């Protein structure tokens, strides 16, 4: 099996679907000749031609809106928004059309569209190049929001996303793009959308994370092990639908919950997870769940980023607090 980093795994999924299905088009700003600012689409235009893989004018609203048009006309657009911070000009298309067309037309028109969104911090980038606003997007009824944390998951989830009949926001943790390699099958495989994965089982605490924070979480779990704390680590993989069952099972076992994400605390993903756990497993909670997240502030420019992004040490601290809290 070839070892791939996240960029290669995503590219491999795109390559497979472009080859497999004539209806698949790949487009966005700079994805053609240049292969995207992260080079995720590099070589695809050369291989599939300008009709299948192309650059668009600098205009996110029409990138998404035209994507919707193509989708209702029978194609399967896979489009890239260069950075997640540039999805906002397309917000109207997302909220008022992409997410609604199926319901509006009682299924007569569907929008099998994938929007790739490189997101997240820790790469010392310019303003608006480091945000994590998945909670905002997951709050929009009618969209699915997927965030892989590994090359293996990314390939399987992206193929499923492209084959899904629903619009999927596929958020890619930039920080992971070239961070490590993993064995990834050269051939196609699918990972179902909406299923979390228990990546390490543990007994005393449940830690939930996703995307780039999974690496931080893994390191924190190791540090915690050194302190004698057995942590169960869950990779959400999908923000909506959100795999409540897997979360509940774990919390019912460990009795203690921490949620880790980059985005702002308030109205974030952690809040939703805590609410769900409350609804169905309150009596199992032995201590107040903890949110280990970004602040309710603008993401600082690089010289302040280190305060904002949760680190393995900070997660360890929170896990220790969580553990020490009396029942």
């Amino acid at each position, binding site marked *: 099996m070839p070892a791939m980093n996240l960029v290669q795994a995503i590219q491999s999924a795109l390559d497979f679907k472009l080859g497999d299905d004539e209806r698949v088009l790949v487009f966005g700003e700079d994805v053609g000749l240049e292969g995207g600012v992260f080079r995720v689409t590099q070589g695809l235009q050369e291989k599939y031609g300008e009709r299948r893989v192309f650059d668009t*004018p600098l205009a996110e609203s029409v990138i998404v809106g035209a994507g919707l048009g193509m989708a209702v006309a029978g194609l399967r657009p896979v489009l890239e928004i260069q950075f997640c911070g540039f999805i906002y000009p397309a917000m109207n298309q997302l909220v008022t059309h992409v997410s609604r067309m199926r319901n509006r037309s009682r299924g007569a028109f569907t929008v099998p569209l994938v929007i790739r969104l490189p997101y997240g911090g820790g790469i010392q980038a310019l303003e608006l190049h480091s945000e994590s606003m998945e909670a905002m997007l997951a709050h929009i009824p009618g969209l699915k929001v997927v965030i892989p944390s590994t090359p293996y998951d990314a390939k399987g989830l992206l193929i499923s996303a492209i084959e899904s009949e629903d619009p999927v926001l596929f958020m890619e943790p930039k920080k992971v793009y070239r961070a490590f390699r993993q064995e990834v099958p050269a051939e196609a495989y699918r990972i179902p959308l909406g299923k979390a994965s228990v990546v390490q089982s543990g007994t005393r605490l449940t830690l939930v994370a996703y995307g780039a924070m999974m690496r931080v979480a893994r390191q924190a779990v190791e540090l915690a092990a050194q302190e004698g704390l057995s942590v169960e680590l869950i990779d959400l993989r999908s923000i909506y639908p959100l795999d409540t069952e897997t979360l509940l099972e774990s919390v019912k076992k460990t009795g203690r919950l921490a949620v880790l994400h980059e985005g702002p605390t308030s109205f974030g993903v952690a809040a939703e997870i805590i609410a769900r756990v409350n609804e169905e497993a309150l009596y199992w909670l032995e201590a107040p769940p903890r949110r280990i997240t970004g602040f309710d502030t603008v993401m600082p420019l690089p010289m302040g980023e280190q305060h904002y992004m949760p680190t393995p040490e900070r997660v360890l601290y929170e896990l220790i607090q969580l553990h020490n809290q009396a029942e």
Partner: protein
Amino acid sequence: MLTSYDPLKGKRLQILAESGRIVNRKHLPEWTDEALVEAYRLMLRARVADEKALLFQRQKRIHTLPVNKGQEAAAVGSALALEPADWMVQSYRELGAVLQKGGTIRNHLLYFKGSEWGSVHPGLPRLLPLSVPIGSQITHAAGIGHAIRYQGGSEVVICYFGDGGTSQGDFHEGLNWAAVFKCPVIFFCMNNQYAISLNRRHQTASATLAQKAVAYGMPGIQVDGNDLLAVHAATRAAAEHVRSGQGPVLIEAYTYRMGPHTTADDPSLYRPKEEEEEWAPRDPLLRLRLHLESRGLWDSAREDESRAAATAETDAAMREVDELHETPLDEIFAHQYSDRPAELRRQQAAYEAYLQWKEAR
């Protein structure tokens, strides 16, 4: 023709004058007498349905809805220039076009009674549901046109929007995309002079809306929107241009919203009665009727008969819709996704538990 009526030179295409006389034989569309009469009938049918819908709203049988009066020539004349296989991307004030395409008065009324089924037109997979966010549908038309080109089809897309719609960013982005990729789209602007209360001259400082085409390197033409023949001729020329792969066209139909914005609106707050009176004789139906009558193709008997037929059709549609009441609970959850995520199943079950409790009390 598209370039010989340069909006920058103040040119506007007119073929049929208010008097009912043909004033421009050069661009007169080749239409049989029957076809012309059919077009008039369709305009009348749209007019009657629109008038009756207003009444039904007053009777509280349906909710707030937009009023079409005055825009029938623009809607019908443009739609008739297209083929059944062509796509139609609606705004919400082109009832005549929707009927031409095969939509029904029943669906129109059902939609404004408040059912999503009003947007479902069986057998019409190329008629998009109406679009509420102003201008946003323009980008969809660009995308559909893109898909047609990609698939090597020969269909075209017609996309309707208002004068107000031209101010939205999506107008700009959609037209630009279509021009860059030479998508087969006719952008059809219904300039009815108002966006709710805002007069067209405060919407933009450009002398015409057609000249906005210059920004995208595409042809733009302004036509008398109350002149069925001019609208038809221009749309036909546009369809030919577009179908032949030369890229999109912008048409501005210069017309007038003779009624209120919607049944909830009161135009007396913002426009002078004299203006309405000035436009009254330019009524698109009146003009065409004069023309048909002058040629012996129409008379009061036919008018009464057609009106009666449209009235009967609309009444029957309303009665049918009257029978429909609430949207079944399951439908609210059924059409969100291709599958039904656990969240939705849980929420539905919880709500059903409440309904049972309520029932039992």
